[in-house]
């Protein structure tokens, strides 16, 4: 396959950035999307041009490090798939592919396709945990969890924190990420004591980080590589309402 790539190049946070066109030849349909970029980078290096910087690590769809807009789709056209798991058989010979970084104020561009997602860590630090210092845990079977709840909690816990939800959201909101963690922990007995302080802390951190507000557009769940459902946001809303009603302010 031969492809035309139009890739966002930006030398650093201060640079304005621009789309640059490249040709890549002899792409195998068995390559992953990132392997195709590797091929381009090898060529650029030998030509003395700086290779395209992009984040990636595990290349098996679980670390959440990779992520880019591919033809306007977060992680590309295949649903439920991260960029590293996207394979070139999803494209056709002669295609033009536009590649851009995640765009959000909370995710400033570091270089080319690399963005800074520390804002997600801040949301977790704002309350996305159960306070259980090492050594303090009761016997694991002390609190049984109904299988349905455990499964639903798992479904939300599958979030890999890649940021596709933010990238795709017309409002630049990080609500699906936030709601996934809120939902996981609010479904489990271990998460109950901090249920309401957690939701307030996380939503506050979310808003402070400069994410937009949720208008239920539903884009996030469509592009989510792990299929985190939209109704997690409902659970967040309910807990948030209850929290603001019951608890005045943070603990």
């Amino acid at each position, binding site marked *: 396959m031969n492809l035309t790539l139009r890739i966002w190049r930006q030398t650093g946070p201060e640079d304005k950035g621009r789309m640059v066109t490249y040709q890549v030849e002899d792409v195998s349909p068995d390559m992953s999307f990132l392997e195709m970029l590797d091929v381009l980078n090898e060529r650029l290096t030998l030509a003395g041009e700086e290779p395209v910087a992009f984040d990636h690590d595990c290349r098996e769809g679980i670390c959440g490090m990779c992520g880019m*807009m591919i033809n306007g789709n977060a992680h590309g056209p295949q649903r439920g798939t991260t960029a590293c798991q996207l394979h070139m058989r999803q494209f056709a010979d002669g295609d033009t592919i536009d590649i*851009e970084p995640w765009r959000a104020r909370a995710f400033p561009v570091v270089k080319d396709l690399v963005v800074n997602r520390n804002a997600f860590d801040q949301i977790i630090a704002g309350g996305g945990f159960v306070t259980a210092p090492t050594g303090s845990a009761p016997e694991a079977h002390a609190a049984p969890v109904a299988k349905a709840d455990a499964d639903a909690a798992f479904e939300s816990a599958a979030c890999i924190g890649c940021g596709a939800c933010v990238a795709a959201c017309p409002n630049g909101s990080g609500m699906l990420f936030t709601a996934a963690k809120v939902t996981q922990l609010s479904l489990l007995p271990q998460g109950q004591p901090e249920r309401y302080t957690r939701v307030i802390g996380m939503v506050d951190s979310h808003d402070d980080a400069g994410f937009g*507000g949720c208008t239920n557009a539903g884009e996030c769940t469509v592009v989510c590589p792990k299929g985190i459902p*939209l109704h997690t946001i409902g*659970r967040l*809303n309910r807990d948030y309402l209850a929290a603001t009603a019951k608890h005045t302010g943070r603990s």
Partner: protein
Amino acid sequence: MAVTGLVLVLFLVAHMLGNLKIFTGAEDFDHYAHWLRDLGTPLLPYGWYLWLQRGVLLVALAGHIWAATMLALRARSARPVRYAHRKKVQGSYAARTMRWGGVIIALFVIYHILDLTTGHLNPIGDPSRPQANVVADFAPERWYVTLFYTLAVVALGFHLRHGAYSALRSLGQQTPQGERRARSLALLFAVALSVGYLVVPFAVLLGLVR
């Protein structure tokens, strides 16, 4: 957003029910319009209730628009650099027309007030004969008014569908079944309201109401 929206929705339901009085005859309809102004008397002077209601609606509307503007501004600031290549939104059509739909509806409401409340843009414009005003409004030769009205109501339908769905979400719908229920409920509600509003002009157009 959800709270102000809810107030406006309540008004829309009441307004639609009132509109449907047109099918029980001109006298009933005019009487209804008069009754609205009479409501609350003798506790309140004539017309006060309506002004009160208008006040509440205005506050709700302002709140609604304010909240929407805030959300839009936040969205704008949350993405200072736009995408060069952006797929159209893949969620629902209704979701992506919320902002434009809202503007269309707002413009329509202004026209609607100038038309049927103050009478400035109505061919008859006699506040004491609301039924006649309505009938004159949707006369066949004034097809463009009917068209605009229809467009506005369709926009309203979409707006309501996503609005109701969102409101249910904001109020904490949180399971897959709940999600399906919320979707159907919102759709049903939006269709019912749109139909309720559209039967009036079309009845006039087709000569069922004179």
